[in-house]
């Protein structure tokens, strides 16, 4: 098979690549675990699932940039699709569910905390992290890659390849965060908006996958069968990611809907709005930082009171 990836030499480059893989997993994981420990020392709990999510997220990133995956990508478009699925969808989901910003806010010195909060409240960030913007950045990037000569460039130019991968990781994180992030997010759009954007982004992704399938043969270096197989993988991989993201989104809704009385927690738009606005107010004023565990215990107690009084 004619190879175009002359930039990836084997041998020494492989060792350097595996070293990079180890660093990608170890450095952030150790930093996260240290932060969790300092939080525990301060007497506040932190879910082990979140820690696991963070480590898994970086393991997925490392898998996507490992020499083995590069070798797969050199052999055809399927490897590229797997790389993009891992970097743009599955790793971001695990990372976002680990609530890194919440942890950061909890362990930063008070002076720095203010800066981070101001950043979280800035209009630029809200514009960038709106689900619609994030979806355009994420799925739009895929369209740009596959419908322009950019894809051909990434198969020969290592720098372009890495920049594209980095873009998918970052855009994927922002998109996942805007849809289902447990982190504090002032003025976050309603669940309806987020669900609609998720549907639209998923449809755009599925459409692109079928378009690529229909247009096979694609780049001259790959056979049509390979391109079709890659397009199908992209389609079903996108489905799986959308399903996971939808579960994460509605699980947040489920957990945060109070269960006080039989009609309370009705997710009609009016109450959802009022309730969310109150939450946002609390985040914006910074009176109290959110903690998932605290809210869950208060829910549990409200369920108990409902049961006992009914």
């Amino acid at each position, binding site marked *: 098979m004619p190879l175009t990836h002359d930039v990836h030499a084997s041998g020494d480059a492989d060792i350097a690549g595996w070293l990079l893989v180890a660093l990608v997993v170890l450095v952030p994981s150790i930093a996260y675990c240290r932060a969790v420990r300092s939080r525990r020392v301060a007497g506040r709990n932190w879910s082990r699932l979140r820690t696991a999510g963070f480590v898994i997220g970086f393991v997925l990133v490392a898998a996507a940039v490992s020499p083995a995956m590069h070798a797969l990508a050199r052999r055809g478009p399927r490897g590229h699709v797997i790389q993009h699925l891992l970097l743009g969808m599955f790793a971001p989901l695990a990372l976002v569910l680990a609530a890194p910003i919440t942890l950061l806010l909890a362990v930063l010195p008070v002076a720095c905390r203010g800066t981070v909060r101001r950043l979280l409240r800035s209009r630029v960030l809200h514009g960038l992290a709106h689900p619609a913007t994030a979806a355009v950045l994420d799925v739009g990037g895929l369209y740009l890659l596959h419908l322009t000569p950019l894809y051909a460039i990434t198969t020969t130019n290592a720098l372009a390849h890495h920049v594209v991968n980095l873009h998918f990781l970052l855009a994927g994180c922002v998109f996942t965060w805007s849809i289902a992030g447990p982190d504090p997010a002032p003025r976050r759009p309603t669940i309806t908006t987020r669900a609609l954007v998720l549907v639209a982004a998923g*449809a755009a992704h599925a459409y692109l996958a079928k378009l690529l399938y229909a247009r096979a043969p694609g780049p001259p270096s790959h056979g049509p069968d390979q391109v079709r197989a890659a397009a*199908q993988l992209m389609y079903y991989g996108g489905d799986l990611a959308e399903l996971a993201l939808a579960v994460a989104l*509605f*699980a947040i809704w489920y957990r945060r809907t109070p*269960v*006080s009385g*039989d*009609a309370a927690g009705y997710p009609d738009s009016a109450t959802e709005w009022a309730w969310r606005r109150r939450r946002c107010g609390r985040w914006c004023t910074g009176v109290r930082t959110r903690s998932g565990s605290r809210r869950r215990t208060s829910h549990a107690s409200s369920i108990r009171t409902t049961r006992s*009084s009914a």
Partner: protein
Amino acid sequence: MDAPSDRTNPGHGQPAPASAPRPQRGRSVLVAFGIGVGIMAAIDEIVFHQILGWHHFYDRSTPQIGLLSDGLLHTAEIVVIVAALFALGDLRRRRALAPMSAWGGFFLGLGAFQLFDGIVDHKLLRVHQIRYGVDDLLAYDLAWNTAGAVLLLIGAALVWRARADSTRSSASHNR
């Protein structure tokens, strides 16, 4: 007893009402409808696309607009079924689920998707046909759409009966 309209604002910490939980029939129908739509879509995809292979991932006659609408429908199904399952869980934990209404909604959802797929997808948008290489496609179309209509009728009957039952019981309760 009718579906409650007193939607209390959550978060105020009001004491829970002392009365027995009231089933929300309308909401039960709606939530189960979403599940029905999702289940029928899954049956269509798993049985007809993947196991029988009657129609496929992509067929070359599909026009662009059909491709786009197919993508939208497909991703909307995924989100709807997840949302509906969580909403069902929410109804159950508030003990506001009306089982017969929910079953009615479920069958309505099954039938509605079947008919929509049979009429809009297969005939109007022509995303794909039920089966390729058969002489009389009409028989397949008739069977498909009749099945959808029957499911729809079962659902309507269940919803109607649940409504009649609860009206009767509330009437006897008031007496």
